[in-house]
């Protein structure tokens, strides 16, 4: 079992797609809320494979895309300070703020570094005590445990020069907001597999019960996603609204307790603004007061940095699945990955970028 081979097997995939088309009596609207899953769906053409039996709609699952504009501006402001080393995951560097992005600031001499893991940032702070190291801690529930561990490690090491610029968002409040909206058309959700690996499945059961909507935890390979869609279609056809786990090789019902403890130790839930979407109650994480010394916003007094969104970008509608990227008047012309108007086009996990990268040959620009 090598996972990559089995879960990308064309015969199995086509079999699942055929089953979906067979069972479905109408075009059910299904949404995934994970940039990695959006990427897979587009790259393998799964929407083509399921045809008219399912309408796939992409949700706000790209953490880069939903990072508020002012957070980007705050990161940019920090990176410009001569004694600050701004450390980040690679994807964030190309996201446009109000004036510029981290790549350009790096080119102008700002100390901006890319890491794969937050522990690299802690190590950097340890090795360079004269630098103020700020890690741009972006993500859903998936990356929160690693960020929490980084703070705890920095605390153990007695580091005074390490902090996080936090922009964490939580998935269930976003689903709740979508389902409460009168414009909502989504009838079933694929829950994000790696988020659930961390937090488990319980919160999704509450949502399924409250809104009578089926939710299936899905993985990231094409066969995983086809299987999740198949299970959703079966539920929808049978009028059921349960939570099922299709990603059993990674997700347990209770999730990862150790990871959850680390997060609960260091973070607390807060209201949070999502780029393009607006404020969603209790949908974010912030560092607890006792870890204030590791909170870059408190440490560097960044609250005064605010921002206005550019008006042509329809990211809110795209992120909430109300519009497809190709519905945007600027798609592929004034807005491209090289010159993005908004985050969903610049992040490789964004819906607009996925459509541009894989599908624009099917659209007249």
């Amino acid at each position: 079992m090598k996972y990559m081979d089995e879960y990308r097997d064309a015969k199995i995939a086509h079999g699942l797609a055929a089953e979906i088309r067979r069972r479905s009596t109408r075009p059910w609207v299904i949404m995934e809320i994970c940039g990695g899953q959006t990427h897979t769906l587009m790259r393998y053409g799964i929407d083509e494979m399921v045809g008219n039996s399912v309408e796939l709609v992409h949700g706000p699952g790209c953490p880069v895309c939903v990072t508020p504009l002012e957070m980007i501006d705050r990161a940019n402001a920090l990176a410009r300070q001569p004694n600050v080393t701004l450390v980040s995951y690679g994807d964030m560097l190309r996201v446009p703020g109000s004036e510029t992005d981290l790549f350009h600031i790096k080119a102008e001499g700002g100390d901006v570094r890319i890491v794969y893991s937050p522990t690299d940032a802690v190590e950097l702070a340890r090795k360079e005590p004269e630098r103020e190291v700020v890690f741009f801690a972006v993500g859903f529930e998936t990356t929160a445990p690693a960020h929490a561990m980084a703070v705890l490690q920095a605390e153990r090491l007695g580091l005074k020069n390490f902090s996080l610029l936090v922009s964490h968002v939580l998935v269930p409040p976003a689903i709740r907001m979508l389902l409460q909206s009168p414009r909502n058309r989504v009838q079933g959700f694929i829950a994000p597999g790696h988020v659930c690996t961390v937090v488990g499945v319980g919160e999704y059961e509450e949502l399924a019960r409250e809104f009578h909507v089926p939710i299936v935890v899905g993985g990231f390979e094409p066969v995983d996603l086809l299987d999740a869609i198949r299970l959703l279609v079966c539920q929808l056809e049978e009028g059921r609204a349960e939570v099922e786990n299709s990603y059993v090789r990674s997700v347990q019902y209770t999730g990862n307790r150790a990871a959850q403890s680390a997060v609960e130790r260091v973070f607390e839930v807060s209201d949070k603004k999502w780029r393009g979407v607006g404020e969603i109650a209790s949908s974010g994480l912030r560092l607890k007061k006792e870890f204030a010394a590791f909170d870059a916003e408190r440490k560097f007094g960044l609250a005064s940095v605010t921002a206005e969104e550019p008006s042509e970008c329809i990211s809110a509608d795209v992120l909430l699945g109300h519009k497809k990227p190709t519905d945007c008047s600027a798609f592929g012309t004034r807005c491209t990955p090289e010159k993005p108007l908004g985050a969903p086009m610049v992040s490789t996990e964004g819906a607009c970028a996925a459509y541009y990268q894989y599908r624009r040959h099917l659209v007249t620009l």
Partner: protein
Amino acid sequence: MLLGHGSGGKLSAELVQQVFLPALGNPVLDRLEDQAIVSLNGMRLAMTTDSFVVKPLFFRGGDIGSLAVHGTINDLAMGAAKPLWLSVAFILEEGLSFDVLRRVVASMQEAADRAGVQIVTGDTKVVEKGSADGMYINTTGIGLVREGISLSASQAQPGDAILVSGMLGDHGIAILAEREGLRFETEVKSDSAALHELVATLVEATHEVRCLRDPTRGGLSSTLNEIAGSSRVGMELDEAAIPVREEVRGACEMLGLDPLYVANEGKLVAIVSAEAAKSALAALRSHPLGADARIIGRVTKEHPRMVVMRTVFGTTRIVDMLAGDQLPRIC
């Protein structure tokens, strides 16, 4: 100037179009092939230059020295030129150890010897500590273009076959693994190699080669997009046919990279006529450096300038040119 301007993708192309060509343009430069071909006394000479800034200096499968020699030989070979002479210019960082320099130079001599080329002139500069990452190398190469053959990225025609000489992504992953201290169960080695003999084998087997390119920075995707753009044709690839080592696939998965965009230093892409495809493939496979050669697609008149790929599922997607460097995905 952004790092992306040097990564071989869209930004690099823009830089050439917007800054270099307007200032420096002339009929030879404007062709923008991997090498310049000039005529002298009835002979065609190929000339190329390249700078090597790889970090770390030593890696599995090679070092900056052998990389420099192979890289410049390959740019000549892609023009069907027999590589003859190289120059080498060193930019050395103050404080660099003599031992490191000796190792690199020895490696260059060995690579040149094996390839039958001579390093005939050189230069050295030393810069302050903090510059040059240890060492930068520039090499310029001169070769003699084989008679009766003229290759160009603008010659691809609908119906032509697209071949690659072997497994893709080895070099980029080997470098990244070394740089990030990543350890995989099976170690990936750079494929750095001189390709001029492989090219000779190919062009001796068939005259219907339109174009040869080595997919270095930006990977297979950048190379194919460049050829499609130059020739104003479309391309259709078969994902299942594209050869990638399992270890490289696995490493790319872990790092969130796509092997189609990862650099190669010992592979070539060949565009040949449909009729010549089989003999071209056989010729490549007959040489050790082409043992894993495959036909991966064909040139088409549909969707000009766009490279489209049939996925393993039979659906289609674009293989786009990247803007800058490939950024590994977050989660």
